[in-house]
């Protein structure tokens, strides 16, 4: 009987330890995109989309010809161009003499 109690005690401790160590691992596996304020798993695609939107919107003039995106993402994340800047900073002349801007 004492041996059974001893064995049950060891099993209980081992089970508790296993549960305690498995919980964070399970949480990691379950929520690769982090947790929401409500405690549920965040939507990974939604988090990636919002992060990229914020970065691109916060850098509207980082690069005209090579925005920090994969080429396939250009259409979904583009910020409208500043036409006035293109005309003022880069000149815009038509061959044959027709010109725009200052």
């Amino acid at each position, binding site marked *: 009987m004492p041996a059974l109690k001893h064995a049950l005690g060891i099993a209980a401790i081992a089970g508790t330890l296993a549960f305690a160590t498995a919980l964070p691992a399970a949480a990691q596996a379950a929520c690769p995109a*982090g947790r929401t304020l409500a405690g549920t798993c*965040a939507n990974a695609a939604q988090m990636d989309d919002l992060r990229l939107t914020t970065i691109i919107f916060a*850098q509207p003039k*980082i690069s005209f010809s090579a*925005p920090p995106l*994969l080429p396939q993402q250009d259409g979904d994340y583009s910020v409208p*161009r500043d*036409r006035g800047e293109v005309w003022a900073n880069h000149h815009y002349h038509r*061959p044959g003499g*027709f010109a725009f801007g200052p």
Partner: protein
Amino acid sequence: MQKTRHRNIVRLALPVILGLGASSAALAQQVGDKSWTITPSTEFRLFTWESTRRFPTTGVVTRERGTQTNIPFAIQLKGQPSTDFKFDVTARTGFTTSSISNAGASSSYAGTTDTSLSGTANYLGFAGFQPFLSLALNLPTGRSNLKSSANSKGDSDLVMLPVFGEGFNIGPTIGVNVPINENWAGSFGVGYTNRGTFDREGPALGIPPTQKLNPGDVLTGTASLSYRGQQLSLKASIAYSTESTTRLDNVDYYKSGDRVVLQLAAGYGFTENWSAKAQASFSHFAANKIQNAFGLPPISTEAFNSNSNLFKINGGVTYAANGYSIGPVVGFLYRDRNGYDPTTFQFVSAKKSWTAGLAASYQPTSMIQLSARVEHLWAFEDSGPDKAPFGIPIPGSAPPSVRTNGWQASASGLIKF
């Protein structure tokens, strides 16, 4: 002085991004590469157009023809070495050609574009609060001083690339994602873009032949709200930017007015096979500060707003099955006339453009995605009356109406390892 500054910035910024990339790769090896992806991707883009200009008071008609190709390619390393940290590093560059002929004259350009290097680090350990830090660089590998090719730039409202090169730009962004629950989330950020000086060709007469332009730095705050349900997804974003003064040959040139950009995006899945998505953008600038009538500083707020508001919408319907997807795509752009009187030289008339075409993609495996798209473009820009400085009309000075027809096509490939 400027080169020293660039070198110092490169010394500071490059190790950050390269370090991020190296540590990401090292972490990838430690974790066994399971949670890391490397994605090379490229796209071939073609835009060809013909514009007819009709000068209203003289009856003269001119035709412009142009073709532009652009081949961007990029590689992205993305991964999550632990539950709490996520990183990505992206490098992108490209090659472009552009040729335009108008009224018997022509101009062409072929060369590399600028190169961007960017990296983002995210912390996911807090529930409902995910801060991130990003750094983007524009390396001046394209050409900003086009010399005899200066006239090969196309209309920025229509062409893929209106500019082939700028200076060394560095753009840090700090932001936070706020996942509220399974459906709703927000995101907030602040970015600063420090833009470096570049050389450009001089005015049309070539005096001086080269000018040094130091574009204004940009400070932007942005916020987004997103909803994702079973079938419906929505996103609304706003950004507010303010710029410092742009200088030309070390003299104050102009200062862009503050800018607001609004964007709405929506997607809806009707069935397992059918879906639709649309995106609408609006951009407004306040009046600029400009040099006086003799082209001299100091700069002061212009009498009327020389900027136009821009409204843009595009969308499409997609049918997808067995790794294939195909569907029609449409787009519309409206740029309103600016605030000046049509008889002044600062007046810019309104413009509309429409696009319609077909987009398709094929995903033979989960690693590979191939896409293609072809669209026709129609654009129209209003004419105006003769200019009348001091109330005296100048015969024949009226700007022409411009009618443009064009085709744009692209084909792209992406592989995830």
